[in-house]
């Protein structure tokens, strides 16, 4: 079995968010980029576990991004994986990302494609299901557990107010979230090994975007917190009713 893990690069959660070019682009100045946590902690580690357990022969990592994403993909390789592919383009449109990955993956015979539940920057959570359609694969989203035996996957996935256990035939795309695996920290051996692992740079298929960012906007600053004390909680309740109108 061959596994493809989709790795995206995102700003560290603690980054200050600011926009430039008349609020049309995200300013990366002074921002540390990291592997999207769902991709790093859950998809990647589960793929490695499947290989270590003998269910998978190869784990490939793929990212759609320009040269500035290489430190992040190397870090992912230091955690594990046999080789990485970087598709040399950049887009905010999830359709473009999915179509670029699909264009590469369609002739590579992957049985399982893992991605994260969403990226922590654009919060879409859609690339995995798009990929499933483009590669004509089954799809299960928001998985917290994944096991594979005899070409069939058993998956625990989140549903409203609970959890469902599904069985799905391969080939399959799964989007991963908490519960799937325990995060791993790259060790020295991994970091050394990552330096010599193949990182293939692939020319983009030049997919046309179907959406464009018109602008960004910061939320209005909170006008300041109104304080109450244990002695005037009735007034807090009135404020929630009359002012905030939430109860």
């Amino acid at each position, binding site marked *: 079995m061959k596994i493809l893990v989709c790795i995206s690069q995102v700003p560290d*959660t603690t980054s200050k*968010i600011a926009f430039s070019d008349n609020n049309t682009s995200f300013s990366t100045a002074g921002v540390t980029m990291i592997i999207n*946590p769902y991709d790093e902690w859950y998809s990647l580690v589960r793929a490695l576990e499947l290989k270590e357990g003998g269910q998978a022969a190869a784990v490939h990592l793929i990212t759609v991004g320009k040269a500035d994403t290489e430190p992040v993909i190397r870090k992912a390789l230091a955690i594990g994986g046999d080789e990485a592919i970087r598709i040399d383009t950049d887009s905010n449109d999830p*359709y473009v990302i999915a179509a670029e990955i699909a264009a590469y993956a369609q002739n590579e015979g992957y049985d399982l494609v893992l991605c994260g539940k969403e990226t*922590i*920057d*654009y*919060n*879409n*959570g*859609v690339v995995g*299901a*798009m990929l499933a*359609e*483009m590669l004509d694969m*089954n*799809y*299960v*989203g*928001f998985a917290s557990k994944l096991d594979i035996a005899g070409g069939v996957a*058993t998956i625990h996935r*989140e*549903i*409203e*107010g*609970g*959890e*469902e*256990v*599904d*069985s*799905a*035939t391969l080939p399959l795309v799964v989007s991963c979230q*908490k*519960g799937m695996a325990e995060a791993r920290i790259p060790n020295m051996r991994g970091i050394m090994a990552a330096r010599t692992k193949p990182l293939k740079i692939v020319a983009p298929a030049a997919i046309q*975007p*179907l*959406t*464009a*960012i*018109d*602008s*960004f*906007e*910061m*939320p209005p600053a*909170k006008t300041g*917190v*109104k*304080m*109450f*004390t*244990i002695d005037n*909680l009735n007034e*807090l*309740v009135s404020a*929630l009713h009359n002012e*905030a109108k*939430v*109860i």
Partner: protein
Amino acid sequence: MSIIVLAEHSQNTFKKKTFEAVQYAATLAQSMGTSATALVLGSADESAMQQLGAYGAQKVWHVADSRLDNLNSRAYTKAIATAVEKAGAAIVITLHDVTGKAVAPRLAARLKAGLVAGAISQPDLSKGFVIKKSVFSGKAFSHINITSDKKVVTLMPNSFPVKKGEGTAAVEKLEVAFDDKDFGVQVKEVKAVSGDSIPLPEAELVVSGGRGMKGPENWGVLENLAQSLGAALACSRPVADSHWRPHHEHVGQTGGTIRPNLYIAVGISGAIQHLAGVNSSKTIVVINKDPEAPFFKAADYGVIGDALEIVPKLTEAVKKFKAEQAG
């Protein structure tokens, strides 16, 4: 050019969020001079489906195949694509929930439609088809223009007030030619978390506890407060990690993302990873004994003091208010 809206139901019950999606689609249709058709998948009662008319659906198409009682992204996608083709529709609306997130992107890929995931506004048609959504885990918004002819939008639940109007919609059957491959994912078991409690992702009011609650034995006061409000319970990550509360209640960067009308945070410091899951809440109340707790910066209302003293008093105040409302 009409609009198709996926009208989700769970075992024949249409929830508020579905009415919201139908109304969103109907409002958009009206501004574009067209109409909205609600699509219902799986076993459902005629009379329940007709009610969708009261939220603006002009008609309902029903794909009455019981294999659709469980989510199957391929089969759902095929059903919606069939409806799109039959109606000559250009726009599809779903909710931004577990079903919508599994189906809408698949459909968008099939139709070559631009997708906005998690819309919180109606499209601004004066600038094209520009929709607002939350990005960077609630720290900013983006306005995205869908430039393709076909368009798919997933609506963030709880973004618009729902108003029930008049009228019923006529229900017509829609036949869809499925094959076995469309059902390549089979449900083996459903583990409901708990029967009658409100599922966190769709709760309008949420009471949440952190490490400041000291231990699971103190959760009774939060349960009472939640009960008095009709709120769901949530918690911070260390609380779930220490098994004080079940993991599905954990919110934040690694847990669930919620967007209730009211989020009451009790004994939670307000770390950035926690805020990532909750800072799109419309109103935030923070109860913390430390006046310097970072959460106060993100709060609308605050109370400084010991949670175990304040929460029971707040519950009393809520009960008093409710009694006055009722009387």
